[in-house]
């Protein structure tokens, strides 16, 4: 039995995950908590949010995110990849910066129109 705090939403439910029992989750306030509890112990993932360089915008950095969660272990590899990116304004919220980031199926997208 592993005790986890759900990070799906700001509520922060206290979950108990039973590894012996098919990762059955208790203490979750919604179905997404059950999914999180199981995934956190089998294949933990996170959405990555960061910035990349941009030329010609109001500021020097443009915020970006992965459009879905990627494996936790790939965070620093992804950050390295972002260091090499440079955008030119204008960009629109939702524009794809890098498709299929590190083979995860997640796209890196712009989160602010600049």
């Amino acid at each position, binding site marked *: 039995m592993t005790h*986890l*705090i*759900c*990070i*799906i*939403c*700001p509520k*922060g439910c206290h979950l108990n995950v039973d590894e012996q029992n098919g990762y059955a989750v208790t203490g979750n306030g919604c179905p997404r908590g059950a999914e999180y509890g199981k995934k956190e112990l089998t294949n933990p993932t*996170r*959405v*990555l*949010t*960061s*910035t990349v*360089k941009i030329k010609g915008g*109001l*500021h*020097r*950095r443009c*915020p970006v*995110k992965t459009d879905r969660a990627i494996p*936790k272990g790939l*965070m*620093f590899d992804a*950050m390295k990849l972002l260091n090499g990116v440079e955008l030119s304004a204008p960009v629109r*919220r939702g524009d794809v910066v890098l498709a299929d980031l590190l083979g995860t199926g997640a796209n890196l997208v712009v*989160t*602010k*129109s600049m």
Partner: protein
Amino acid sequence: MKQYDVVVIGAGPAGLAAACEAYQNGAGKILVVERDKEPGGILNQCIHNGFGLHYFKEELTGPEYAGRFIEMLNNTNAELMLDTMVLAVTEDRKISMINPRDGYFTVQAGAVVLAMGCRERTRGAIGIPGTRPAGVFTAGAAQRYVNIEGYMVGKKVVILGSGDIGLIMARRMTLEGAKVAACVELMPYSNGLNRNIVQCLNDYGIPLYLSHTITEIRGKRRVEGVVVSRVDGGGKPVPGTERFFDCDTVLLSVGLIPENELSRSAGIALDPRTKGPVVYENMETSIPGIFASGNVVHVHDLVDFVTAESQRAGAAAADFCRRKEQPGGEPAVAIESGENVGCTVPQHIRPDRIDQYAEVFFRVGRVFSNSEIEVASGGRVLSVFKREHMAPGEMERIVIPKKFLENASGGAVTVSAKEAKEN
């Protein structure tokens, strides 16, 4: 003098929502004044996700949340004046401001919404002993440098305070290649959201020292390290528990203060507990026609609630300038804070002005498990709300039915929190 129906001061999440809602409620000429060069306020630098779960039912980053409201505002006829600083607001709703294009000028507003937000407490506010080297930042200032300006603020970091901004910056600095040696919290619990402790500290193996504080900052030109000590129950450092952390940067996440210089000089009554204006159920301040919402009133945990509160203020502002004759003198019920309850918002409710029930927000004074929130009047308990968990870091919300307020004895109800009775 230029005339507007509604003038909103600040184009952060509070101002944007208030202006959109004023438009929806029929305000004709709306002006939004913003001192920055772009709208969106602090959301622009909050590039992490977790915003909008209540309002948009999806998880957005700060810039995405702001972007949606900026688009909504662009679809109204509201005028957005950027790079403009408001200098004064008067009781009769004249607003003086200044910018590089028009110089100094004054406009007349039918109604005003104050949405100036809050600012961070600094090293001076908490008086950390030691030298005065470079490398001590508020967490939000560091966030702006890193996320917007593109500067790294340091390589080895100690964070004082475990509020959400501190936690978010612990992860952010780590991802950008810095080593975060520790997050130090004076209280025996964190004021941040649990999810942020998990995904910002635990994910990266950053230790959290509860009941500890920085007792000395060392360094001549640049921070060279900090001394951290354990504190006793009264928050005093315990001699002999000192330990040294080698670092070049200290980030402070030690609380936010509503920014109310304009409110104060306008003569608006402020609440010393929230440090924001005293407000009625529709976010009206002590001066009729001047409303306030968002972090300028009380510091929120979630932007979604800032939006909801600001929509109420915007709608009420539109309503105020539509009426030729203002109602007034309706009886108001005082919402008083009882045991373990910090200040409530609103502080006063006019039962005649609400439909079915009124929402009341507050923070509790300590951590509770299995507890009750009690609403009482004249020694009689009106209603009880059960809670499995409460903490000072999480704002509580209750709804009080109109009929309870109409029958409140002595014109007041008291909200208090305590452990649940065994039954």
